């Protein structure tokens, strides 16, 4: 049996001191198989970026295990088996290095690659992302945002890693460029059968890219399932609210009315006991406030962390309207 490229087992991450802890992640588990794309959706404070950093090895979890290709020790020809494309094109590339050098960097640890072979691989990677050869000699300063992001993608794939994590990779780009870059990522996946973790706060972009989607809120997983499952039969109230924010054109299954959540998003320093989502859920009751719902399987491959999951949309809407009579 081929091990998953990436597996997180009950990963928890705490920042800050014992007295004032900040729980960025609590008990998150996931598996990504080779060639698969997992999408992670969440607002700021959901822990998605922390998850990315732990997956890629930049930080260690406070508790839990991270396995890459079934192994705790990660190695792929001297580099990390998981590469990353970052959000900000401007700070993703060293402003003083020509693009060529930046893209070549992941190959530095691989002794089997000669200078000539390395050069070929860099040029091939640049071609694949659609950057012409003369761009290789320039510094990032003269490039546009889209070009810089392409260079970052070239860097990510030059060592042919089994997995690439994209942390808000298209968020900083102009909308018109986003589609091009997304298509590029899909082309890369088809060409190399790379596994992807695609992180964004935008459900549309995530669903465009992903086979399976995980919805996160305040450091925990609220719902996880295939794209079809989440769109057709969303189970968690939070997922419902995210979907209701998607413009009708994208859904193709009839218009939904906008589901308004009450209250303000809580901060990561004040996670409420019981269900994380209680402060904004229209259906929250005493049980929700006391007992934290476990992530349980409500259908094959479909998990949700809610006492009342699967929650039908009508029930949720009714509860929301009832809570706001003047809305």
């Amino acid at each position, binding site marked *: 049996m081929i091990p998953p490229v990436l597996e997180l087992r009950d990963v928890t991450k705490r920042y800050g001191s014992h007295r004032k802890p900040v729980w960025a992640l609590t008990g998150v588990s996931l598996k990504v198989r080779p060639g698969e794309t997992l999408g992670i959706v969440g607002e700021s404070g959901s822990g998605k970026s922390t998850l990315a950093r732990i997956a890629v090895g*930049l930080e260690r979890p406070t508790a839990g295990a991270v396995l890459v290709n079934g192994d705790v020790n990660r190695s792929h020809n001297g580099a990390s088996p998981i590469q990353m494309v970052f959000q*900000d094109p401007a700070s993703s590339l060293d402003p003083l290095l020509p693009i060529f050098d930046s893209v070549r960097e992941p190959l530095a640890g691989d002794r089997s690659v000669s200078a000539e072979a390395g050069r070929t691989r860099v040029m091939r990677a640049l071609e694949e992302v659609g950057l012409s050869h003369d761009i290789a000699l320039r510094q990032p300063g003269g490039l546009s945002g889209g070009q810089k992001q392409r260079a970052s993608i070239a860097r990510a794939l030059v060592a042919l890693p089994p997995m690439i994590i994209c942390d808000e990779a298209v968020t900083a780009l102009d909308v018109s460029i986003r589609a091009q870059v997304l*298509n590029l990522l899909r082309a890369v996946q088809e060409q190399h059968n790379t596994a992807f973790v695609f992180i964004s706060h935008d459900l549309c972009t995530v669903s465009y890219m992903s086979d399976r989607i995980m919805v996160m809120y305040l450091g925990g997983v609220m719902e996880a399932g295939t794209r079809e499952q989440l769109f057709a039969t969303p189970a968690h109230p939070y997922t419902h609210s995210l979907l209701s924010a998607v413009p009708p054109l994208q859904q193709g299954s009839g218009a939904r009315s906008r589901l308004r959540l009450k209250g303000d998003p809580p901060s990561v320093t004040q996670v409420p006991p019981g269900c994380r989502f209680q402060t904004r859920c229209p259906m929250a009751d005493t049980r929700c406030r006391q007992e934290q719902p476990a992530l349980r399987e409500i259908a094959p491959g479909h998990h949700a962390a809610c006492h009342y999951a699967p929650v039908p949309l009508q029930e949720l809407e009714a509860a929301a309207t009832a809570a706001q009579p003047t809305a």
Partner: protein
Amino acid sequence: MPTRIQAIAPGEGSRPVDRPAQVSMMQRIRSDSALMLGLLMCLALLIAVCLGPFLDTQDPQEMTANVLQSPSPLHWLGTDSVGRDVLARLLLGARSSLAVAVAATALALVIGVTMGIAAAYLGGWVDWTLMRIIDIVLSIPPLLLAIALLAAIGPSTPTLLLVLVLTHLPQTVRVLRVSALQVGQRAYVDSAKISRVHAVRIMLRHVLPNVRGMVIVQASIMVAHMLLVETILSFLGLGVQPPSPSLGFMVSEGRQWMELAPWVVLSPGAVIIFSVAAFTIAGHGLDRMLSSQQ
């Protein structure tokens, strides 16, 4: 299934491909008149100090009978209390002060930048301990420390250098540490870590070049300050020892004859002020240029 995307035509994104994003450095320097002034002053100083002693002037050590003469065609700035040509001594003294200041700055920067970057990158207890030590060293007024050490060990040029470096290290480390921390947060450093680049290589390849602006600013400001401190120490007799001329000591010697021959005191003073101001103005200008780049 197409495996390549066509090369992007110009016009992608918000900026055409060919337009450079930055104005050239010379243009930026020229647009800041204060910076130009500072750099020109530094240049003038360096030229005067390097070439001056070779020009056909009087011997700085030759003691003549023309004591305390006012400026004349023979002695452009007059003579001092033992008949030595003031101008010649001035040029030599300026050269030695500048040499000491520049050497001490170079040393302090090499050590301080290394420590600052290392502290920022390694973090943890290394950083904490270093900061505590710096706090302690900074609790002692630097001039007191300098005087005490020179008095105890005995004034000599190596001790002078040691003392100057020691008193300026803490501030250098602090400033560079902050800059290195900022650079360390950037995504390209994370990317290098992911690519398993060795820590030292990251510091040399990514952090150091990207803090070079701050290093240059610090260099300029430090030279100015070291000049000031060096002349104070030589005023007290703790600097470069006689018979080598030094600017501070010339002021000290000339004080007795101040009313008779004010130029003996005023000319070294003017040179000191000019030199310190040159590097200070240049340093401030460079700092402005650096901040506008961010």
